[in-house]
């Protein structure tokens, strides 16, 4: 069973059409949930870390939230430059002391 599941796999939005990406996790002893953005052929770019249920963080058009089972990345009024793959990763007692366990990502395309 996957410990980190992201949905949808792919999402196409019109410019300005807000939506949410989901990351659900089943690991025990969550220490942190990380969101990264990855452009094609590039390394993951750090966006947010969330540590406890109820926590929220915002950056420009992005807002990340965390519950005890999942995290959402809300994208408000997206622009074409927000097109990328968004990766969720967890750091937990179950996954190891000092490494991240990644989901497969959501590939977002924003159409002008």
């Amino acid at each position: 069973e996957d410990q980190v599941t992201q949905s949808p796999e792919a999402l196409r939005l019109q410019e300005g059409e807000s939506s949410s990406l989901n990351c659900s996790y089943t690991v025990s002893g969550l220490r942190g949930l990380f969101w990264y953005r990855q452009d094609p052929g590039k390394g993951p770019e750090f966006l947010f870390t969330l540590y406890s249920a109820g926590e929220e963080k915002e950056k420009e058009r992005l807002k990340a939230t965390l519950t005890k089972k999942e995290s959402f990345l809300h994208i408000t009024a997206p622009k074409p430059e927000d097109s990328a793959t968004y990766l969720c990763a967890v750091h937990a007692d179950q996954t190891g002391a000092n490494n991240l366990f990644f989901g497969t990502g959501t590939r977002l395309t924003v159409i002008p």
Partner: protein
Amino acid sequence: EPEVTQTPSHQVTQMGQEVILRCVPISNHLYFYWYRQILGQKVEFLVSFYNNEISEKSEIFDDQFSVERPDGSNFTLKIRSTKLEDSAMYFCASSERDITHNEQFFGPGTRLTVL
């Protein structure tokens, strides 16, 4: 803004050959990592390194792999005898302290192609 750098950006090698992938982590960071991403698949942890020794490694990181910090700035991943299935993007990452409350910053990756 400080960043993690990696060289080369693309490495092509023959099966059975040794390759060394190089990384320069962010200068004040103390923890270093290697991850890989096979085309179309998830990013997978290989190894973490702290205080000049491996602190953690995954099942993927078998005897064919080794890491080294040969000087104060470089961090290398060596694959002793490459296999076809080693073809992937390899990402180096670093963090200031352990990742309990510190994010990992990733480099741009080295694309390794094994023929």
